[in-house]
């Protein structure tokens, strides 16, 4: 495998994909092994870092995606006119963490933990593509359950849910 040429093909693939690409799909399309695919991604990642490129590789779980380098965010924001901060409110973060740690979880379980109805915040998180429906519970009312998305992993820089910060029980003193 002539590595350099292959990283360029990978680059073309990542650019032309509107969604994250799995290593498996990359391997299949380029007709290489899974571990070759991983090596290529690593190589391209290094290349972008070395070049302080305008874009960089975001990898999470078994997928990769190309995105802009945060270093140049000010310019990109100016271009997209995205001046408004899209940060999550404290309450949204609370709901998001509860969902992240306790998924799949129902609305009423979230409400039970927070002591307050959180539907609006759940919808907000769904709009931000951080949370999605995960099916229904096989019990009375067949309530919907919710969980986090791949985009959540990417945006919070987690390779998988296992990377979530440990909940420290001892630290919870008043």
């Amino acid at each position, binding site marked *: 495998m002539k590595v350099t040429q292959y990283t360029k093909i990978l680059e073309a693939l990542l650019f032309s994909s509107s969604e994250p690409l799995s290593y498996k799909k990359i391997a299949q399309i380029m007709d290489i092994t899974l571990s070759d695919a991983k090596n290529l991604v690593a190589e391209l990642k290094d290349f972008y870092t070395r070049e302080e490129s305008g874009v960089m590789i975001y990898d999470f779980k078994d997928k990769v995606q190309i995105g802009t380098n945060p270093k140049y965010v000010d310019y990109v924001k100016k271009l997209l006119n995205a001046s408004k901060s899209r940060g999550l409110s404290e309450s949204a973060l609370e709901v998001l963490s509860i969902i992240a740690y306790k998924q799949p979880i129902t609305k009423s379980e979230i409400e039970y933990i927070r002591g307050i109805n959180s539907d609006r915040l759940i919808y907000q998180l769904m709009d931000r593509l951080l949370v999605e429906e995960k099916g229904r519970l096989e019990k009375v009312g067949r309530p919907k359950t919710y969980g986090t998305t791949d985009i959540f992993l990417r945006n*919070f820089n987690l390779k998988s849910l296992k990377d979530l*910060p440990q909940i420290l029980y001892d630290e919870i003193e008043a």
Partner: protein
Amino acid sequence: MAMTIKIAEFEGPFDLLLKLIEGEEMDIYNIQIHQITRDYIATINAMQLFDMNLAGEFLVMASILLEIKSKMLLPDHQYEAIAFEDSEDPRYELITKLVEYKRFKAVSQEVARRQISEDLVFTDRGQVFLDPALFRKDYETMSYDIDVLTRAFNRIIQNLKRFDADKLDFFKNIRRERFTTENKVRMIRDLFKEHHRVVFQSLFEGTLILEEFITVFLAVLEVVRTDGIRVVQDRPFAEIHLIKEG
């Protein structure tokens, strides 16, 4: 305890309770229920709760506190800090829930720190630019799953549902278009194959709903424009006739 508090400062009753406990520097496992109930009720009294649902949620907590307080007034009980599995203590349930809540509150700060703030990264390019010239042949033969389309459509509707009832109206009567101007134009033209004069009113016979009515009307305008048909009314309120010359 004089506090000026805006509802927005609290994420909910648990949050308020935790802040009061911290404010009084109490041990969460040994809440002085007396004191805290008084603080809590004073605070929600001071809050201007206009949202009845929200007010309800804060009041439920107040009643829970009062209930615990009354249980603890029963004689022959000396309450110390609660221990694990100390489910006899009237405070047990509340405190375990509070601890659980506090845990998530703490961890959510930690999760927040990990966020590569999504506004720092742009990945949805809206489109993938592929030189159309190179792909034309492929585009002609490509096959898509219909569900990508319906899913996209449902997503739009779900989003509108949450935010915009007005726009939702736009979708309310999605149905195959039963009445098209083209069809009605054809109908009118067919009429003029046999007649050279048609009563305007008669075009609407059998018209059931507004949509069809409008379609017929548009078709009339169209034939007037394209087929040189004249519209004639002899005097005010008289019948209107469509006349095709020659």
